[in-house]
């Protein structure tokens, strides 16, 4: 166990809030995705993140039919298929630091051959320049005549 103290610096900038974080994990092997789901759900629970739902969209199979031989023999073909399994994990109500910590942890332990898409929904206040229409505050400008 290291004896040095890790410095945790706290900055004053306001945190961005994420209403929903949706992780879609894609892989060729269902068993790997199942294990990864167990890991991701346990990590979220330990870090105090509420898991909305975990669902598995149906797999997609991409099939190719190619000629078996290098030259002629059109009637003899070989078929390959690529199976992509999906697993979708939806998390609710995260702050930007919690999201950064969770995503880095979960992405560093992403197994080989598995891809991930993260959809973040950030919530924000209406910016100041949209609160009031600007035409009320502008000084009155005389209309210039159109020179034809």
């Amino acid at each position: 166990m290291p004896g040095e103290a890790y410095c945790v610096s706290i900055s004053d900038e306001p945190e961005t809030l994420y209403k929903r974080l949706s992780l879609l994990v894609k892989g060729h092997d269902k068993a790997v995705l199942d294990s990864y789901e167990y890991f991701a759900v346990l990590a979220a629970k330990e870090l105090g993140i509420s898991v909305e739902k975990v669902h598995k969209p149906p797999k997609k199979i991409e099939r190719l039919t190619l000629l078996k031989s290098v030259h002629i023999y059109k009637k003899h073909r070989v078929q390959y298929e690529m199976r992509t399994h999906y697993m979708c994990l939806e998390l609710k109500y995260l702050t930007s630091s919690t999201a950064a910590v969770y995503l880095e942890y979960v992405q560093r332990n992403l197994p080989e051959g598995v891809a991930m898409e993260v959809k973040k929904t950030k919530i924000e206040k209406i910016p100041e320049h949209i609160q009031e229409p600007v035409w009320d505050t502008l000084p009155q400008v005389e209309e210039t005549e159109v020179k034809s």
Partner: protein
Amino acid sequence: IVIHCSYTGISIHAPPRTEKMAVDQDWSSVYPTAAAFKPASVPLPIRMGYPVKRGVPPPKEGNLELIKIPNFLHLTPPAIKKHCAALKDFCTEWPSALDSDEKCEQHFPIEIETVDYVSAGTSIRNPKARVVTLRVKLSNLNLDDHAKKKLIKLVGDRYCKDTDMLTITTDRCPLRRQNYDYSIHLLTVLYHESWKTEMWESEKTEEDMEEYIWENSCSQKNALDTLLRIKASENVSNVTEEELLASEVVKNYRNSVIALKNEGETENNVSQYKESVKKLLNIQALP
């Protein structure tokens, strides 16, 4: 450790590490990080692969299938708990006042959606990552009646009437930050333009109207005309238009016509229209 005699060709292997492992050892020190499967370090009798005829799958020694598949031996539940306990210092809490979706929407009406992509390949970049989607409900913006109608006309397909949600998707800039700034710029421009009233907007005709307005329409003129003629033929004293407009029958008729035009023809609407016309023209006898 292997003792090998190159003369006779005999090698004596030391027993594998699994024989010396205690049952209650600390597993996270055996597999602290992601590593390939080492059969001499994992004390489990695993068999993997296609079984021989009338036999069992091959054992773990020299088994390529076990080495190929990614293993989660470094992520056992106690190891995950240890990692999370160390990471918990860097997490912040969600504000407890925003515990429902409605409260989030009331205080933070704008939603920005961005997508990040992680995959193995020659490049870590993904061109789809620059797309930004901005969603806002028009009821949260400071718009009056004319501004709201003008905004909906300007925006066209991007507004959904059922959920009252305006969705702006930007991907014309190469960076995500630029797309976000552009979407905010679009929202600002739409907002300010919809408050302006141009000179040519006064030429708005009946076909441009979003909803049916009964005042000053042919239906109103015809109804009043008919009623005045009925009253004149019965020789009642001159009833003024305002009195006719304020009477119950005309109000009923007005409501039923507006319902028919705005909501379409449903059984309810058509029967309501029938009743109101019967009362207006005083023909109760017909079924």
